[in-house]
């Protein structure tokens, strides 16, 4: 017998895809992917959003028709006036829940609004979780660098506060955000004259050491891990700890297959080993890691316990 042990959330697309690719991706997710929630919108660079903004309403409608609940993403580093206005407007609409990825948005939260906290907000301890829950946070996707011991404590705190905990279960891990655009810099440009060179790299631009070792990936102002975080082998212990939800972060390739591999493994329909094999098929180029969960370096990969 299989049981559904986790909900799943598709995180916001982190990369600068064309409007057509954006629309196709969400159409397929809406129709075929076994995920419960979809966070949609720009979280990395506000210069990208105008290119696909007009595709978002149709994507949302189709996702909702496909039975997904839709949450609006917010920008990870808000500095410009137009970014602040956009952040304020997110909280003025009342149709969809908002995911906060920068504490700027806390200034717009009204007492009656509930919201989610994204992985880029520093929720490291029970006091911070409790504070945000009292302001209206109902779901916390924890910072990916947290070890399992912290996850356990935060789940207990979330339970007390009537909130749910989600962990970063799949995809390149966001490690840093900057005022500077590294994609532009690597092309001899600056952020203000970037020519949108980030659109060339569907999963980020590889950063290798001078010895050729894969290390990081640049995605505009964001720096990601080279390895894809992957907790498919750790679902038993996460379920035991009371983690409610898994976050899957979009990549190019067959992402519906990724969501199916997680759904089948989470329900016990297939083994973690078979789940991992499916992920390797869906993303043959990707290398995986789960070191953060073990309090080790994030790049490490430990076999499932």
């Amino acid at each position, binding site marked *: 017998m299989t049981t559904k042990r986790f909900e799943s959330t598709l995180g916001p697309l982190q990369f600068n895809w064309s409007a057509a690719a954006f629309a196709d991706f969400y159409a397929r997710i809406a129709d075929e992917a076994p995920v419960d929630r979809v966070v949609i919108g720009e979280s990395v660079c506000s210069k990208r959003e105008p290119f696909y903004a007009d595709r978002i309403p149709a994507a949302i409608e189709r996702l909702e028709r496909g039975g997904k609940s839709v949450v609006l993403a917010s920008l990870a580093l808000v500095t410009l006036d137009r970014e602040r206005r956009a952040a304020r407007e997110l909280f003025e609409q009342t149709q969809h829940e908002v995911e906060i990825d920068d*504490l700027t948005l806390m200034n717009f939260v009204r007492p009656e609004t509930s919201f989610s906290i994204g992985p880029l907000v520093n929720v*490291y301890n029970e006091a911070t979780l409790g504070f945000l829950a009292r302001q209206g946070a109902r779901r916390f996707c924890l910072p990916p660098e947290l070890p399992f011991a912290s996850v356990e404590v935060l789940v207990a705190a979330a339970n007390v506060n009537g909130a749910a905990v989600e962990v970063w279960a799949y995809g390149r891990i966001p490690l840093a955000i*900057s*005022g500077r655009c590294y994609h532009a810099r690597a092309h001899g440009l600056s952020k203000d004259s970037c020519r949108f060179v980030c659109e060339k790299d569907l999963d980020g631009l590889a950063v290798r050491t001078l010895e050729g070792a894969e290390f990081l990936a640049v995605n505009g102002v964001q720096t990601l891990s080279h390895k894809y975080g992957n907790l498919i082998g750790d679902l038993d212990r996460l379920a035991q700890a009371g983690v409610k939800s898994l976050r899957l972060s979009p990549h190019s390739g067959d992402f519906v297959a990724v969501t199916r591999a997680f759904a089948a493994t989470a329900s016990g329909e297939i083994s973690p080993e078979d789940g991992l094999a499916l992920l390797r098929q869906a993303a043959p180029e990707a290398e995986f890691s789960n070191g953060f969960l073990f309090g080790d370096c*994030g790049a490490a990969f430990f076999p499932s316990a």
Partner: protein
Amino acid sequence: MSARAKDLELICPAGTPAAFRAAINAGAHAVYCGFNDETNARNFPGLNFSREEMAAAIKYAHQHDAKVLIAINTFPRAGAFWRWSKAVDDAARLGADAVILADLGLLDDAARRHPGLRLHVSVQAAAANADAIAFYARVFGARRVVLPRVLTVQEIAAINREIDVETEVFVFGGLCVMAEGRCSLSSYATGKSPNMNGACSPASHVEYRQEGDELVSRLGGFAIHRVSAAEAAPYPTLCKGCFQAGDYKGHVFEDPVSLDAASLIPQLAEAGVTALKIEGRQRSRAYTEAVVRSFRRALDAYAAGRPIAAGELRELTEGQQTTSGAYRKTWR
């Protein structure tokens, strides 16, 4: 010149009692420092203050009409929150003039339990615009915000026009190129992070090795620099390393530069900044003394309407190169 500019405060680092006294003697208006544990973001072996040393330092500063700001600016570990909370209690008990905090839970805890204690929002909180700052001021009564190093001087001026609290900006020393408090590059390579352990690119995970006629410095096994054996291999701080990204080979994130915004003192003053901060609690007493003395001279010159001598600190900076960082828009 505005009246405000004359009152610019000089905030100086101290990692040891000796550096603390040197900073005060060299003209610091305030010194920031931390307890010798994981509650502060410069948690290095042999650095920082026991409770007794902190008490003596505060007494020394107050005798010399200077202030002490205690940095408790890492993010408390789940299950050990009490340790950070206790650090705030001790700072209040010892008579600190302010505590510098980054964690929401700790700010909330401090604001509720120590209503009289002055709260400064750490650069680690990455409050990068007027709305974020308004939130900290409204909810916790924060009185000052240390601005993240992602803003131009014009943006800082615009922020100051909108907010009631004071702002403090970095003017000299090491330069984070990422939004601080939001970077886990170090823990990806080593398992130790500024947010959780108060350490970035820790020495415990550094390795130097000669390979052929090259010297390689590694962090957590990843090569960060490769130089000819005749050169000095730079310390492998992750974001200052040499990498390859597409056709680009070199300093993908930042050159091995450090921040020197001495020449921007007039602009920062006009932008409404209250305090200028020098980075480097891990630095020697001699370094602290030289930098503080030089900046105090610059502030006094500015207040008196005299020109500021540029570049006199160059020999103290990493790699002999300096930048004004994000303060100029072209940096982005």
